[in-house]
């Protein structure tokens, strides 16, 4: 018997992921007075005002109550024996059993309804971000593998070809562009080689999430969902930004769905490109030649700040360190945080509205992590960015403000 996922049935089933709830204090008394008339009791006006003030103060001090680890029924994510009503199940047409007793592996939870129109699936107490879905205008911060997923009119130039979502790309794109052997990664050394037949996985040595010194994707991320991640310090996989081992940052509660310029992911950058906990360093672990960190491509591949022209577009540099200096540069024109071309910060909070000389260019300023509607996983269609024509403040011209119209 096939126990297909929600896209095809309405069987109760579920998943999870950390949730954050705005904790609004309830009134100390019901505003519904005796007799059923809504109103305020005599003498209660002052109390209500006091309550309101206290609530505001509380909300300012503690904007979110964070569920530090996954909540939900075990059964919503795990199948103890890969058996349901005496039969083996399939998840999205894929047969198991699946590692870590999961119901369909990574994709079983995070891509459980490719044709579905939910980017965050809530079941019970669990909210599960979907990296593969068909919700209009619902792409999360990482993008949407839908654009590159086999079976959904994929365009492989638009995303990472992750196993179980897409087939391996043909050479030379079967190896990460810019790959350098044996670079230093959090916890150890990156792969000494990237065999052409080795397809990208969600996690592990050949993937992005989890501990990349561990080859098995599921081992590499083992326990992370159950880790108290109220503090993202990169010390463990569970306490790393989006389980990207060693990376820090501030996680938007809805994975940037309906994010605003004052409430978004807080990406960690390092204007000196000398830290290993930046989001760009994570990218550089595989695309090393595109990152100026000395462990990776370094100045030889990317160029140097201040005193040279770039060889490749830099990342993990601040506007203050651009050639010719910040003062009087076109980058002064980027002043308000842009969700289209976001920047990183040395100490991100996810609430930054202001962009200034200390704001940091990162890989994700231009690219998505998973897949996008555009070639090269860009946030915009590079083919349509035309100097002198495209409006400033958009796409490349969000930063390069003087190149636009």
């Amino acid at each position, binding site marked *: 018997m096939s126990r297909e996922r929600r896209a095809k049935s309405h069987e109760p089933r579920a998943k999870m992921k950390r949730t954050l709830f705005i904790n609004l204090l309830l009134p100390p008394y019901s505003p519904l007075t005796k007799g059923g008339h809504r109103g305020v009791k005599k003498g209660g006006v002052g109390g209500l005002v006091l309550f309101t003030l206290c609530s505001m103060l509380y909300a300012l001090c503690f904007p979110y109550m964070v569920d530090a680890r996954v909540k939900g029924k075990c059964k919503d994510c795990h199948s*103890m*024996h*890969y*058996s349901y009503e*005496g039969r083996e199940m399939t998840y999205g047409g894929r047969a198991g059993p699946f590692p*870590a007793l999961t119901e369909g592996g990574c994709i079983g939870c995070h891509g459980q309804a490719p044709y579905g129109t939910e980017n965050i699936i809530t079941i*019970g107490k669990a909210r599960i971000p979907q990296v593969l879905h068909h919700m209009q205008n619902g792409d999360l911060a990482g993008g949407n593998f839908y654009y590159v997923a086999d079976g959904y009119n994929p365009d492989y130039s638009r995303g990472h070809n992750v196993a179980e979502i897409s087939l391996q790309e043909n050479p030379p794109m079967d190896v990460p562009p810019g790959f350098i052997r044996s670079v230093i990664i959090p916890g150890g050394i990156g792969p000494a080689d990237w065999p052409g037949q080795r397809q990208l996985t969600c996690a592990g040595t050949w993937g992005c999430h989890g501990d990349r010194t561990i080859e098995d994707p599921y*081992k590499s991320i083992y326990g992370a969902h159950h880790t108290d991640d109220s503090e993202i310090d990169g010390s463990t996989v569970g306490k790393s930004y989006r389980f990207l081992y060693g990376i820090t940052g501030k996680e938007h509660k809805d994975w940037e769905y309906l994010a605003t310029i004052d409430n978004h992911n807080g990406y960690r950058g390092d204007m000196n490109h000398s830290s290993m906990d930046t989001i760009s360093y994570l990218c550089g672990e595989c695309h090393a030649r595109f990152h100026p960190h000395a462990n990776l491509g370094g100045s030889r591949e990317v160029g140097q700040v201040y005193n040279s022209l770039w060889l490749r577009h830099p990342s993990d540099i601040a506007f203050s360190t651009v050639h010719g200096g910040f003062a009087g540069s076109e980058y002064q024109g980027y002043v308000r945080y842009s969700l289209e071309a976001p920047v990183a910060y040395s100490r991100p909070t996810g609430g930054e509205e202001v962009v200034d000389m200390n704001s940091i260019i990162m890989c994700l300023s231009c690219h998505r992590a998973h897949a996008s509607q555009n070639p090269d996983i860009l946030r915009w269609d590079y083919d349509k960015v035309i100097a002198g024509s495209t409006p400033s403040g958009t796409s490349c011209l969000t930063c390069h403000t003087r190149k636009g119209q």
Partner: protein
Amino acid sequence: MTEEVEPGKPQYVLKNVLCVNCHSNSDRDTIKILGGARVPVVNNTVKPVKPLAGGNFYYVAKDFGDRKGHNVDGVTSVDTKFQRSPPGYDRISDPSARGYNPEKPFACAGSNGCHGNRNVEDPFDSIMGTHHADDSDIDGSTTARSYRFLKNTNKVKGVVGLEDDEWNQNSSSKKHNEYSPSIDILCASCHGYFHSKDKTGKERPWFRHPTDIVLPKGGEYTNYNPDFPPPPDRPDLRTYSLDAPVGREKIPGLPSDEVNPGKDIVICLSCHVAHSSPFASMLRWDYDAIVAGEEGKGGCFICHTGKGE
């Protein structure tokens, strides 16, 4: 009693129903006296008080649902979904010469049951004489000398263990059955997929919940049964939990309240009971109520101590 009598062959007319009749009770007691004998009751027709270690067929016989227990012939009707096929049955894992026959009823004993010699089809034949045999030494050599008469077949050693003289009716961490991994082999005879390393995996990450493996000496497992921490002078030990019991590689002479992560063994019965329980999948707890991340206690969290917080 649904088996047909083969022409020309003497038959025990009582067969499986005899087992059920003796080991059932119309009141709530789970140990009854027949003559001078104390008889463990596995099937109360009213809600039992203190179900025994194997659970009580009351929960599956009373239409609480097929998922609550083994649908034993004479106790309840055939499972509507499984029909007569054990989930995860793998002929290779079944040492019985006959194998499980889905055309026949699921019985207490015999090749389509758990107790007795599973090479013998007839339930009553398969356990013949065991109640009158000396079982002071449980070494698995014969049906009578196998733990709870669970011999499996001649091909393999019977189940061994330490039998609580009250079938765990008044059990505590210091007084209880002691199990060995041999009980897993018996379960696997009919549910092989859930035991075979080819099906479960050989190490983390597991593909099915492992059984017959050592409770890890590390991570969350070192806090096994966190609500009952050991005395300060035994920091490496944990306290035995009746809700999630472990097996022993070597059966102790007396029941032990100690659990040694790194030595003691996760078994099928760590989570399930053998006969029937109030909970789906014959679990020892309500799996539906086990919620990660909410400071839950008990159930899965007796071993997975880090998931409940």
